[in-house]
């Protein structure tokens, strides 16, 4: 660890600007957003993100020229109390710069793309005012993500970790008053909430891991301190390390959408498509992978935990892939695909194949962003087609309802709701949207792992490692790879081939340049991205680069058997998908041809194996019931009303009735006053019965007093 002062070359001092640039961008838009035009807003936001990218490049360069030495750039003190010393310190090393480059690079491209996308999206939804808000959130996300990847302690990482969770919430709920089909609904906001809360469950794991770390591993959250202390503890208190890693795994599962916490990610597709691309495919969801990679020195101490991580990843990869097969929504397919691919990465880092995991992370960022953005392009294309069609048809009607509110009008216009994301509404788009089609093809091939696209190399490396370490993981991943190719093939055939199955698809229009150009860049990267880390001696660039941080690992040579099996399976899958979907294109309103042969299995896939419903029954409903019970029965009726108002009051009532009073009379109780008062009041009402106005009784009372006093003196 070197401090900035000792370094003579490099741009390390720029590190804070990774965060500051997007923050400035978002502040500019927040303050002046109303005055600025859409172009300016987009430009400011993209510039902010671009600045972060430039800084990332400079930092990467600096790391390179300093032979990969990790450098800490202190920025400010944060929390100093007792043994706790937390600072805002940036850590620049090869691992973090890799992430920075991916985040800011892909992020900038998506910013640019979003200028075009959101321009149309806000218009279709008649919400022009929201354009600026979107970019504010995007910049906020970049800032948070930068904090996450550049932090030099677990806590700073956690700050970014929660920050991106917030952005995810805000962006998923961007269209918070509607569902994905722009109908007034709670659906989008539900999805947003679900994402945040699920993430928080993961964060809980992270927090506990952090606490354990602090109290057992050297009272620090600094990566270096923790790593330094870990080996000794692993000798003496092994359970601590295991607990830390497993609790951290819970965090990883939350953020990177692994079993059992992946459920939020498919719903997150409620956000605008650039969000899906940026947050829910390329960057945020990979934070978990980054975390495990970052914690490599801890994980390698406990192989049993590593095995669990790998198994979780592998199972997720396979499980999500099966669901993807049964989806009709173009983005849902990609969402499950993302979960599945994240499973690959988590499995990789779990096995200790950190480089492979990171490699796949990078390439996946390229091609999955590409796929999502292209999907967005498709959706907007359909939307345009739909509007062109609908505008014509409903022109007359609109005049009549001008007086009504915008949404209501919107409402009535779309009585028959058109879903531009449903693949069953598509078909034959390769003719109307050729550019998008080709870009989508590249993404698909990369994802399916076809040689020589980027995905082939990275996935292959994971499979290589899996083959070496855990056979079960290897086979699960291989099968998942097969499914991947299959559902992507299915998608291509359904979306771009065959005949258009809707009016909108017929009149779909290609997207503007501002959207397609970034896609082309991503497509290029998806093609050549594999070159980062080819499995040949001397070409392990990424491995070497990450080796600065993770320790030099010898790159694995190409194993033709593994590569062969996966390639053959992928091609086979695409072929089968052609047999089913390509040869006989889907007709309008025709159900999925797989439905009949697979039966309930397909129903399971289609309905996500009913996991959401299971959670509903097992966790959400019981929690709701419990809290209702606590609130209404325990707290209010029992504690507030019963104990305070009835028990205390009742006991005294009973006492006063039995002991003091034969003429119980409740009229005196002023119901206005609180119950505690009324019990004493009642009691006192009974006592005062003795106060009956008779002189004789009063004298008796005096006499009684005297007799008692004398009696006491006798007894004393």
């Amino acid at each position, binding site marked *: 660890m070197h401090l900035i002062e000792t370094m003579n070359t490099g741009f390390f001092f720029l590190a804070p600007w990774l965060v500051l640039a997007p923050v400035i961008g978002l502040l500019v838009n927040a303050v002046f957003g109303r005055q600025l035009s859409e172009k300016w807003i987009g430009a400011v936001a993209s510039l902010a993100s671009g600045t972060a990218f430039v800084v990332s490049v400079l930092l990467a360069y600096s790391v390179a020229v300093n032979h990969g030495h990790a450098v800490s750039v202190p920025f400010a003190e944060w929390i100093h109390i007792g043994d706790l010393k937390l600072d805002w310190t940036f850590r620049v090393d090869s691992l973090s710069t890799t992430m920075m480059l991916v985040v800011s690079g892909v992020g900038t491209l998506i910013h640019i793309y979003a200028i075009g996308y959101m321009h149309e999206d806000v218009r279709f939804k008649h919400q022009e005012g929201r354009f600026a808000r979107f970019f504010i959130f995007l910049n906020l996300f970049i800032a948070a993500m930068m904090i996450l990847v550049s932090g030099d302690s677990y806590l700073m990482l956690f700050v970014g970790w929660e920050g991106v969770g917030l952005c995810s919430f805000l962006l998923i709920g961007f269209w918070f008053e509607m569902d994905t089909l722009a109908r007034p609904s709670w659906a989008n906001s539900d999805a947003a909430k679900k994402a945040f809360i699920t993430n928080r469950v993961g964060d809980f794991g992270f927090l506990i891991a952090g606490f354990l770390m602090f109290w057992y591993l050297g009272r620090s959250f600094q990566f270096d301190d923790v790593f330094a202390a870990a080996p000794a503890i692993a000798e003496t208190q092994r359970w601590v390390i295991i607990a830390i890693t497993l609790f951290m795994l819970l965090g990883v599962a939350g953020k990177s959408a692994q079993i059992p916490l992946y459920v939020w990610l498919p719903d997150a597709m409620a956000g605008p498509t650039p969000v899906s691309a940026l947050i829910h495919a390329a960057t945020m969801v990979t934070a978990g992978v980054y975390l495990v990679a970052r914690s490599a020195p801890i994980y390698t101490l406990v192989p049993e935990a590593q095995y669990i991580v790998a198994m979780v990843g592998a199972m997720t990869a396979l499980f999500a892939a099966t669901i993807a097969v049964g989806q009709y929504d173009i983005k849902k397919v990609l969402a499950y695909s993302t979960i599945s691919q994240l499973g690959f990465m988590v499995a990789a880092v779990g096995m200790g194949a950190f480089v492979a995991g990171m490699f796949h992370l990078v390439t996946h960022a390229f091609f999955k962003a590409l796929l999502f953005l292209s999907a967005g392009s498709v959706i907007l294309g359909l939307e345009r087609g739909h509007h062109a069609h609908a505008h014509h048809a409903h022109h007359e009607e609109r005049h009549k309802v001008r007086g009504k509110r915008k949404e209501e009008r919107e409402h009535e216009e779309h009585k028959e709701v058109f879903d531009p994301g449903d693949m069953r509404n598509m078909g034959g788009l390769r003719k109307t949207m050729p550019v998008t089609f080709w870009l989508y093809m590249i993404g698909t091939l990369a994802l399916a792992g076809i040689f020589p696209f980027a995905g082939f190399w990275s996935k292959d490396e994971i499979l290589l490692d899996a083959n070496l370490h855990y056979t079960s993981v290897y086979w699960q991943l291989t099968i998942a790879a097969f499914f991947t190719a299959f559902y992507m093939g299915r998608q291509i055939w359904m979306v771009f081939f065959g005949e258009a199955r809707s009016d909108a698809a017929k009149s779909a229009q290609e997207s503007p340049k501002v959207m397609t150009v970034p896609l082309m860049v991503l497509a290029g990267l998806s093609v050549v991205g594999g070159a980062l880390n080819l499995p040949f001696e001397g070409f392990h660039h990424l491995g070497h680069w990450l080796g600065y941080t993770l320790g030099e690992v010898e790159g694995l040579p190409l194993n033709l058997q593994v590569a062969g099996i996966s390639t053959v399976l992928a091609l086979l899958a695409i072929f089968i998908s052609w047999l089913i979907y390509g040869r006989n294109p889907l007709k309008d309103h025709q159900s999925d041809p797989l439905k009949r042969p697979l039966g309930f299995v397909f129903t399971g896939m289609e309905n996500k194996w009913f996991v959401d419903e299971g959670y509903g029954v097992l966790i959400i409903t019981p929690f709701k019931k419990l809290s209702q019970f606590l609130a209404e029965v325990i707290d209010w009726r029992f504690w507030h009303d019963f104990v305070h108002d009835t028990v205390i009051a009742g006991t005294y009532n009973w006492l006063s009735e039995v002991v003091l009073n034969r003429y119980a009379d409740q009229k005196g109780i002023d119901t206005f006053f609180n119950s505690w008062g009324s019990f004493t009041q009642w009691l006192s009402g009974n006592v*005062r019965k003795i*106060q009956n*106005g008779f*002189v*004789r009784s009063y004298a008796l009372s005096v*006499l009684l007093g005297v007799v008692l006093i004398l009696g006491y003196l006798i007894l004393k």
Partner: protein
Amino acid sequence: MVPIEYYIILSVILFSIGVAGVVFRRNPLVIFMSIELMLNAANLAFVAFSSVLKSFEGQIFVFFVIAVAAAEVAVGLALIVEIFKSKRTIDVDQLNSMKE
């Protein structure tokens, strides 16, 4: 000679009778008489003690008690008469207009 205890016991008995009268009679005049009986019992005790202790103080106290009793009677009887004028009865049980 009669032992002092006898006097004291007698005085206690008279006092108790007076107390009982105050407690259960309803005619304020009789109540008042009972109070006089109590004072009288106290006086008896005083004189008895005074005689034993060979001190005049007790007797003098008794003298003052008698004077005070006279003063009380003046006021008390006036009150009773007034009440009778207003209410046409002197039953103390009827004096409960304020029991709430």
